[in-house]
């Protein structure tokens, strides 16, 4: 296996974790989160800074990132999770912007736009370069599996029924005696924790992070993974994440064949292509490749008339 494919697979892994987390929040519980890049970046910097400055080992860094995600997710959701979906979208997006501004401006801590180099990696002496890529892919794959099983478990458990009930109509859930607010905060925080863990794994993989890795575009890629795969369906979004990466990377190769466009234009064309595709999917196949099994489609995609 070439090093390139391994690195692509690793990136698909990061996307899968983020997509699973978003599916937990949105696909299953109906909470919109456009602040994915914020949590992803927060996790990356938390683990990065703690390992670089404080000397935390890898695992402790990742765990701290997860904890950070839990706390930040709880904080943000307590403030905003009661809001209507479209407002929640704006607030979470704004949150991601604040995180990015913080990373950019507080260079005493984050080194600002110059970025942060992270040399801490688990068992980096035991392998050579190529082997190490495979080893790290293993770590990421293992994390994907763990997250997948947790999310699936939550979906299948009675807890999952509460999540769907909240998604469909929280007035009903409230009257049934389930505290919808509490459940929403819980689910949102857990999702944010996964996002931060993905960020930490990413940081130690690329070993050099800067604020411009965590732009809102990341959120769009993840949303696209979930939508293309089929919101509410954990298997679908794993495929969705693969498809999105295929498009991202596949269109990169386009450059080898069309020599008349420069790299800058090519990257613009790629994003235009992704945007068009996203619109087409929402327009013509809103349920995604694999629709949610046996339950109704999630709120975000169900077609209801205003008024």
């Amino acid at each position: 296996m070439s090093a390139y494919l391994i690195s692509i697979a690793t990136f698909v892994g990061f996307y899968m974790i983020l997509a699973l987390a978003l599916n937990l929040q949105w696909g299953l519980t109906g909470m919109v989160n456009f602040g994915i890049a914020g949590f992803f970046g927060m996790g990356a910097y938390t683990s990065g800074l703690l390992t670089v400055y404080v000397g935390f080992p890898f695992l402790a860094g990742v765990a701290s990132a997860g904890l950070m995600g839990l706390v930040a997710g709880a904080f943000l959701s307590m403030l905003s999770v009661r809001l209507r979906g479209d407002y929640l979208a704006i607030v979470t997006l704004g949150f991601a912007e604040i995180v990015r501004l913080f990373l950019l401006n507080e260079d005493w801590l984050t080194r600002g736009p110059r970025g942060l180099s992270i040399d801490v990696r688990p068992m980096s002496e035991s392998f050579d370069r190529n082997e190490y890529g495979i080893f790290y892919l293993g770590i990421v794959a293992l994390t994907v599996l763990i997250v997948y099983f947790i999310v699936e478990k939550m979906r299948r458990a009675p807890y999952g029924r509460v999540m769907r009930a909240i998604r469909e109509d929280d007035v009903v859930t409230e009257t049934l005696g389930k505290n919808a607010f509490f459940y929403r905060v819980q689910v949102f925080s857990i999702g944010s924790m996964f996002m931060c863990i993905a960020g930490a794994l990413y940081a130690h993989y690329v070993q050099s992070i800067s604020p411009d890795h965590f732009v809102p575009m990341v959120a769009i890629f993840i949303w696209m993974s979930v939508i293309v795969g089929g919101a509410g369906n954990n298997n679908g979004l794993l495929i969705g994440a693969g498809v999105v990466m295929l498009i991202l990377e596949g269109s990169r190769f386009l450059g080898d064949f069309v020599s008349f466009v420069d790299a800058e234009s090519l990257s613009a064309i790629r994003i235009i292509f992704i945007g068009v595709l996203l619109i087409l999917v929402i327009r013509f196949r809103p349920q995604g490749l694999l629709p949610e099994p046996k339950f109704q489609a999630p709120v975000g995609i169900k077609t209801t008339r205003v008024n």
Partner: protein
Amino acid sequence: MGQILFYGLMDGAIIALPAIAFTMLFGILRFPNFAVGTFMTVGAFIALTLNVTFGAPIWVAAIGAMAFTSVAMWLSDVIIFKAMRESHSISLLIVSIALSMIVENIIRLFYGNDVRGFELPLERPIKFAGIKFTPDQLWIIGTAIVAMLLVHALLKYTRLGKAMRATSDNFALAEVRGINTNRVIGATWLLGGALIGLAGVFAGVDLVIEPQLGWSLTIPVFAAAILGGIGSPYGAMVGAVLVGIAEELTGHFFEPSYKVGVGFVIITLLLFFRPHGLFGQPEIKK
């Protein structure tokens, strides 16, 4: 302090028009259109082409930008949103983000990533009552005020304006009373596009022109609209000035680079304490 208030007013003048457009579109179509900022960028670049490439004076360029942006936004409805009227607001929101990605990168294709500016005669700042400002800034504030007065006159005194307010208030009832809501929607896109195009020119004069121009103004625009209460153009005007002043105060007392974050903080706190905006009334839940 006067200086800060002036700059706040200036920021407010730039975000007021797109905030009006945003709130009117939101009021009628029931989804937040994230492409609003990007269409400001469109306006700025069209004006740039007319002004720099073709040597048109800035006011001619501004009119051209308004016309172009207006039609472009209307076309975005005809091509994309019209067929999706029944879709959920979150789906439409994502579509609008995708649209803004597309438009922003079309701009990149044509103009690249360089930072540009209009060709304007250099003007010496004027000092009046302890406040320093340039004639350009006065023009922007003045033009914004005139545009808002025109919007007010349209909404209050014309048949179209009344239809717009009625449709935004109660879509189904407007239709039942004989108003062709399709036409109202089309007119709202055209009007909104013109306001956004003009604001794009303002932003281009006050800041620099680059493909990300509008995106950085999106959150403040949303903040102004939400502050004023969704669907309320007058609220959006007041909201814009308040956001502008809050931004300048933050810039003055904290760190200027956090100005953009102010909008977010305002939105969050406001939605937390007054979910229907500062002046909005709660909707009756059916």
